[in-house]
């Protein structure tokens, strides 16, 4: 998720969302609330695409560490990339083919998976 570090700041400042508000927005938008019904096996497979860039992320990386990211926030950021509300074209391209089920599956995976090394 290149640029997500900046993106996290951006989405907070521009959308003024908190986790609770984001969760509410997902619910009223008919989105997949992260934990319920998310497909863990699908998330594990889809996560392999993320690992090419995010697997070695450090605190000062332009490509952020996404392991342990809360599901609601994860969903929020990926949806923002999909909508091109966040700027990085790599992540816009990655997110463009993810449907809500894919995003929920990834969010579940990364909240619980351990970062390698």
């Amino acid at each position: 998720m290149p640029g997500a570090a900046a993106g996290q700041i951006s989405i907070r400042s521009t959308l003024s969302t908190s986790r609770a508000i984001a969760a509410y927005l997902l619910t009223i938008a008919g989105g997949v609330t992260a934990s319920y019904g998310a497909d863990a096996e699908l998330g594990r497979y889809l996560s392999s695409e993320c690992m090419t860039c995010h697997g070695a992320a450090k605190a000062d990386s332009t490509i952020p560490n996404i392991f342990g990211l809360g599901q609601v926030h994860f969903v929020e950021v990926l949806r923002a990339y999909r909508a091109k509300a966040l700027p990085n074209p790599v992540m816009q391209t990655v997110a463009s083919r993810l449907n809500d089920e894919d995003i929920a599956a990834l969010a579940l995976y990364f909240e619980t998976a351990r970062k390698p090394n």
Partner: protein
Amino acid sequence: MTEMTRRNFSLFAGASLATLSTPLFAPSVLAQAKPRLVVVGGGPGGATVARYVTKDSAGAVDVTLIEPLKNFSTCFFSNLYVGGFRDRKSLTHNYDNVRKSGVNLVHVMAGSIDRDKKTVMLAGGARVPYDRLVIAPGIDLKWDSVPGYSEAAAQTMPHAWKPGAQTELLVKKLNALKDGALIVMVAPPNPFRCPPGPYERASMFAHVLKKKGHKKSKIIIVDPKPAFSKQAVFMEGWEKHYPGMIEWQDPKIHGGIKGVDAKTGEVKTDFSTYKAALANVIPAQMAGKIARDAGLADQSGFCPIDPESMKSKVDANVFVVGDAAIPGDMPKSAFSANSQAKVAAMIIRAELTKSRAFPARYSNTCWSLIAPDDDIKIGASYEPGEGKIKQTTGFISQKGEAADIRKQNYKESVDWYNGIVADVFG
């Protein structure tokens, strides 16, 4: 000939079985009852498949990786070594963590494949049987695609399109140039490894010459292609950072590449004969020999694959990933190889452990450095379609972008490098 089993494996290869996920003294019948994956080639394609199948099958598949090198130098980012942005050590990686993950490492050259007997023959004569085979040998060079060029000529006119000694030779020659020198690059025809690579390399040549204070040196690229990857942004960058230093000639300008002479340093085209102080000749390419000898390549020299799985179109038990494959719309790159490897690993894991498979998805991004903190990128997503791996969406850097975007691209590329080598080598 001997059949390589778990029982004699460590004696032959010097591998430590203590790190395998299976207990060391497990009855061989149990070990042999496991389905066997053999991977030939430990680069970004092969090593990724080996690691992912091992990890995702939780040790249920016996995975053997055959790679002669104990330390792998990445071709990707080698241009940054040419430009002085990276040292050699930072591009070299061992297989310690691949081994620790549970993969059997065999540091021996694979000699041939007997597809009827589902066996890989090692250079020493040992046989390694498989249930599924992944071939990831990378490229071989078509020496005679440039008249006068040969493996011997490469000692004078380096290609440096495979990492290691050739890259060292290129850097040595580059650093020895005096002001007023002429560098001539013979660019390769499509398809070839790393489409933006020759043009990033020319940028790194120019950076080194500029840094050394050269005022009169020149770089001429004679190209058999009418266009190249990220051309508009490369050419804009060349004019910005190295005005007048880099000249790109397409076939309409040079009229045809007639040949090279390693003894005189000459590069001949229809238009002119250039006497180069440094000639960098990058010939046409094809799949690695072992894949061609196994009958996996078509008349193009590369291996056709099923876009849903990365399976060879000529053998359902064999997968081809990375530069040796015909990847449809995907470029030949480390990123592509790593992406293709994950599709192959998922299918192999599903077939060998009777577990769940998912639709194939692929992606790629290539970053190229033009000058310090001026980095451009191109990327795309791909899925099976129209009988090939088809691009579904993508992006490319634009002319006139702000300096902070280009600087961010460079930082991102460095972070990507750290990410992908961790993904490949653990």
